[in-house]
């Protein structure tokens, strides 16, 4: 079973990332779990590129992402949040 870590999901970065992912897959934000896999919740490669763009715009960062690279740096919702934290330089 998926378990949600409320402490991680309540800060600004987490909420911002969750909102962007939820919008891309057309689901309410509260249904997202940190360990949800992006491919399993319906985020195809097209939506992934749009998600990256939204994340870059929201957090004013540059994410090096190439759709041809099969090695994804993040595969779950929680990993996206962690990656954004790392880019922003905030723990």
């Amino acid at each position, binding site marked *: 079973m998926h378990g949600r870590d409320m402490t991680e999901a309540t800060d600004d970065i987490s909420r911002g990332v969750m909102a962007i992912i939820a919008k891309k897959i057309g689901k309410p934000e509260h249904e997202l779990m940190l360990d949800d896999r992006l491919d399993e919740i319906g985020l195809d*490669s*097209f939506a992934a590129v749009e998600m990256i763009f939204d994340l870059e715009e929201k957090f004013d960062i540059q994410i090096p992402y190439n*759709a*041809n*690279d099969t090695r994804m740096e993040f595969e779950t919702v929680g990993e996206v949040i962690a990656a954004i934290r790392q880019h922003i330089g905030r723990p």
Partner: protein
Amino acid sequence: MAHRVVVTGWGVLSPIGHTADAYWSNLSRGVCGIAPATIILADQLTQRGVAEIKGYDPGKHFEERQLSSLDRVSQFGVIAAREAIAQSGLTFKDGLSEQTATIIGCGAGGQLTLDESYKRLYGENAKRLHPLIIPKMMANAPASQISMMCGLRGPAFVVASACASATHAIGLAFQMVRSGGAPVAVTGGAEASITFGTMKGWEALRVLAPDTCRPFSRDRKGLVIGEGAAALVLETLEHAQKRSADILGEIVGFGMSADAGDLLSPDAGGMRRAIDAALADGGLTPADIQYVNAHGTGTAANDATETQALKAIFGPYAAKLAISSTKSMVGHALGAAGALELVATLMAAREGLAPPTINYLGSDPACDLDCVPNEARPMRIDAALSNSFAFGGLNAVLAVRRFQ
């Protein structure tokens, strides 16, 4: 009555040669036309590699007063068409002008004109634009300019289907000549969309290779944008023989399909239907084909999916095919790609030499067919295919035979 359709002229303006002869010479030697961009500011691009027409001087081809109404894409189209017509030896007298079709593929129209105008307007707060912006940027401009500059008064239009534009255009011209609708057609494709705006758009799509174009190779990282034009003169066999023209090759089949699925992801089913249709239209069986000029963009998805489609059609025989992507040398010229590639395919059959897929680092299990890695291969080619599969799921395939 159906006519046989032969090619009696070709013209090429490419990143590896400004004439058809130079293009073939460099294709057969595996010369790479990809380098950092020079016609736009590359320092603000994440991926700087493009396949530009190098050393291009419009003044060598056009008078100053002509250039004010010609976007780069129309210049390219006219230059290629002039070379093809000159090689065919045709003169458009005695009513032939009115019977000659001009059908040109172009994916993006006059992008340079658009980009420069918007920069002036939004970036520099210009109060007015040049009066010929609209006729320079209109998508049909390459066909209009070729018809005007070469004196062709028959059916004329541009076909737009992104990366398959030229293949669709040539296919329609082929059908028109075969059906007797026009004894002669000037066809092909032109593209010149390496602008700062479009390159930032490609960058945003995250499909550009950071290094170079490596179709079917392991560690391929995406496509490289190119530009250029290629034109062909198509004629009925009777028309060409009556005037003792030099026949360069024959187009025998054309197939099209739409995926009606994903906007960007390729679909083996759609590719397969287009290839099947081209073979059937040309009265060919899979075993008749020796060479395939692949769409082979160098993206992870296209090359694996194209391999699947070819294996589905050709079965065990797929392993015997020579399948190369000339995009490894000239990049992806989008709306011109299908024309550059059909000319390469016809040249390969005529010369008995499969051009290579260069920049190849080693095999990828998902692309386990023979892609003629890194070096051209002498071989007999009686019949061949040229594949084009566009964003938006629009597929077009041409089948050709060595003329005999």
